[in-house]
């Protein structure tokens, strides 16, 4: 391990290419289903995916729609004119002998997104993003003299997002990867399920002691945010160590061994491959008109950075904000941010709701793994905040009521009555509480005397007795007032 002081003389530069699987029903150029997750090998393949003689690709319009949404989500605008090109190479999982991609005129040009690392906001440039088809999957069974090819994935629509080399630490790389994930989810263009490879990262890392960039390595097919971070950490250490020993960094493709937590050399990039790109004559260029673009822009949801600024203006902590930002997509069916959005005008109410969501609702849903709960949360929280505002709910009562309602499949028609029946409403009727207070004071003369003589600790005991007798329904602050009144202090 190189000395930290020496490490500090190196500047790390990171650029990330991210492949995102677009959430279409069918493949990019054929009418075959796009969800290969549980499908038997080669069951989602038609003559087009198979590269049969005479088969022609036909562009899936939904993929274009999603790419246009992605453009806005990446702080860019869709290109009015873009086209598809063929990238040639031979491999058994590439049936046509070329991949259809976008070479020099991609659908998404320059953009930028902001990331937040330890409370510091940073802008990361997006170089471009283009549509392309995925290849099939090759497996090489150990000890066999054959390989297997599954073409289910061949033709799946991907968006490849290329960042500027604007990141300089493992934390920034991880934050960028996570931010891309959030944006793809917020814009609803991808399932972005990392486990299923819906989103994969190629991490380019170089280190340098001068103003010139060092030789970079590209570690491919990373499928977790944590691994993105680890790859950067490992590569930075490895590259500095190599350089400190006087060795050169070899420009190469590397892989990530998650078990051993290290990168390993896969393929040297001594000569650039010649892919013989050419425009695909089977696919007319994509020409988008202004009305189409404007209509999609109008339906774009609020992106996470905008939400962060709205939520921080409520005075929520970073961890509370992160919980809500993540929950919006992890528990997307609950629409937490939309609930908050409706009450943003009332800061006190919004803050109270945010607290309920962060402390009660989100943990409850996560714990109970409720994937779809058709609960009208707007009605739920309107009722709870109404009861709280009327002093009918203690904070404990509110929590109990929210938890209770989250557990029910359908909301009761009259939530106030329901809370009452469940005994969660606190008694704020002076007369009723005064009666109990009278009884408590009479039954506890010693405590009453202590309070009267200035021993204010004892008032807690008396309030406790009132709560006990009222079976927890009494408003405790009202009870305290009435005890003082009773004792003339």
């Amino acid at each position, binding site marked *: 391990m190189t000395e930290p002081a020496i490490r500090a003389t190196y500047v790390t530069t990171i650029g990330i290419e991210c492949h995102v699987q677009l959430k279409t029903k069918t493949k990019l150029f054929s009418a075959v289903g796009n969800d290969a997750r549980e499908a038997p090998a080669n069951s989602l393949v038609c003559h087009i995916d198979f590269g*049969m003689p*005479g088969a*022609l690709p036909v562009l899936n319009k939904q993929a274009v729609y999603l790419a246009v949404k992605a453009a806005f989500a990446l702080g860019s605008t869709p290109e009015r004119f873009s086209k598809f090109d063929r990238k040639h190479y031979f491999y058994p999982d590439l049936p046509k002998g070329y991949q259809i991609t976008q070479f020099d005129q991609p659908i998404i040009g320059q953009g930028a997104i902001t990331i937040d690392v330890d409370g510091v906001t940073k802008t990361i440039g997006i170089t471009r993003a283009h549509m392309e088809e995925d290849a099939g999957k090759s497996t090489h069974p150990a000890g066999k003299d054959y390989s297997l090819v599954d073409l289910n994935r061949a033709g799946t629509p991907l968006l490849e997002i290329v960042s500027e080399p604007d990141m300089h630490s493992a934390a920034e790389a991880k934050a960028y990867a996570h931010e891309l994930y959030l944006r793809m989810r917020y814009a609803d263009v991808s399932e972005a399920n990392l486990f299923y490879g819906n989103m994969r990262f190629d991490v380019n890392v170089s280190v340098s002691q001068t103003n010139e960039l060092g030789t970079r390595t590209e570690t491919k097919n990373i499928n977790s945010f944590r691994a993105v971070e680890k790859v950067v950490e490992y590569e930075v250490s490895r590259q500095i160590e190599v350089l400190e020993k006087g060795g050169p960094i070899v420009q190469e493709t590397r892989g990530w061994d998650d078990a051993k937590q290290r990168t390993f050399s896969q393929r040297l990039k001594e000569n650039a491959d010649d892919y*013989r790109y050419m425009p695909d004559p*089977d696919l007319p260029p994509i020409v988008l008109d202004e009305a189409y673009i404007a209509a999609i822009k109008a339906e774009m949801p609020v992106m996470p950075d905008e939400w962060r600024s709205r939520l921080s203006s409520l005075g929520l902590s970073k961890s509370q904000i992160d919980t809500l930002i993540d929950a919006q997509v992890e528990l997307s069916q609950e629409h937490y941010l939309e609930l908050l959005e409706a009450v943003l005008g009332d800061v006190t109410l919004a803050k109270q709701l945010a607290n309920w969501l962060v402390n009660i609702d989100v943990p409850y849903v996560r714990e109970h793994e409720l994937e779809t709960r058709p609960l009208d949360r707007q009605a739920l929280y309107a009722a709870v905040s109404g009861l709280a505002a009327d002093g009918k709910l203690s904070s404990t009562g509110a929590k109990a009521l929210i938890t209770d309602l989250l557990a029910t499949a359908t909301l009761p028609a009259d939530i106030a009555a329901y809370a009452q029946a469940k005994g969660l409403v606190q008694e704020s009727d002076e007369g009723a509480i005064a009666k109990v207070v009278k009884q408590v004071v009479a039954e506890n003369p010693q405590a009453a005397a202590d309070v009267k003589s200035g021993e204010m600790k004892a008032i807690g005991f008396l309030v406790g007795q009132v709560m006990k007798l009222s079976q927890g329904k009494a408003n405790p602050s009202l009870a305290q007032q009435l005890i003082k009144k009773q004792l003339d202090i």
Partner: protein
Amino acid sequence: MSQWLPIADLAQKVQAGELTAVALVEQALATIAAKQEFKAIIVTLSERARTRAKAIDATIKAGQSAGRLAGVPFIAKDNFLVFGAATTAASNILKGFNAPYQAVAIEKLEAEGAICVAKANLDAFAHGASTENSDFFTTLNPHDKTRVPGGSSGGSAVAVALDMAPFALGTDTGGSTRQPASFVGCVGFKPTYGLISRSGVVAMASSTDVIGALARTTADVALVLDVMAGKDNLDGTTIDADPAGYTALTTDMHGKKVGLIKEYFGQGADPAVEALIKSAAEKLKVTGVEVVEVSLPTLPVALAVYYILCPAEVSSNLSRYDGQRFGFTSASATDLEQSYTQSRGVGFGKEAKRRIMIGTYVLSSGYYDAYYKKAQTVRTKLINEFNEAFTTVDFLLGPVAPTTAFKIGANSNDPLQMYLADVMTVAANLVGVPAISVPAGLVDGLPVGLQLMAPQRADAALLALAAQAEAVLV
């Protein structure tokens, strides 16, 4: 005289019960068998055709319509996928490949009752102008068996010329329907690019490939086009058919102008062919058109442009023939690399390899700008010149080919000489306009075709002119 009635009449008589589909299919199969010596056919689809014919006759007996082409036999170039039938594109690499799906063009013809009876010979993968590049055998010209029938749709053209069927399908990437039509003396039509779906047709050069039709008369070709034309959701480059259809052929030619293409004359073509075409242009005036001379200055380099762009697309389109999933695969390969090189090395013929190499070269980084990109720029210039010309004339006119059918073997050792056979046809493909070859007469006993072209989507008018010209030409 042809043994076949006009296609529309045939279908009508089959529908009316005066003829049967079964009889027509037997007639076609018998003719194919009798004319075997010309080697026009790669495979006959006898059983498939007989089964379909019976079904069509039964449909009609049951009082239902069997379609606009009821019972009409046809022959498809062997680069069309016909469901369940062997499809080779006359290449060894596709030997043994049976089509698991069907070309949209075939689908549309069958939906109207037509019956595919055989698959015709071609230059392998449609690379050529003589059928000599077929990996199997060379087709012979019916007018002189020592001569080629033209190509690449040579088998289809000969099938029509020998009356094997009322019509045949070809493809036209650089002249492959028109040039053999000219060499054997039938009508060969290349529609506007995109008018007929290419789905299910083995691709040659995608940006110029079109489906072509060959028949004895323009009227027959027009009816076949009418059935096949139109936008298709399996081919993103297709366009809508003319809502008025293509079969009327009645466009009034008075006041229309035909431009005689200056660059196609006096540049080394056979003077007798030039003279025949000029006299055909004169005769054309009977239809009411005015004939003027027009110049398209970029035309002389069209062939060079074509032989850069076409091999580029060919090299890409032939990548899928890799011996891994269908067709020929090398049995002696011991690893993946060998499997690729041996399967392709043995499976592809000389001309396919030549075009793959040229195409790979012009697309290589470092050469792309000098060749592919430059050729595209010149192609755009050519398109602009045609558009400009079509502001002053309604049609263009010239020969189809610089010569009549040449001798078998005359050009086969000189690929450049062979490429020159396309010199007058490639422009229509590069520009995407419709073009037709109609018989204009004979030179030394060999047929010569007159080529007419029209602006994109003016297919109906072009067919009308050709139909009206037919009567006065020969």
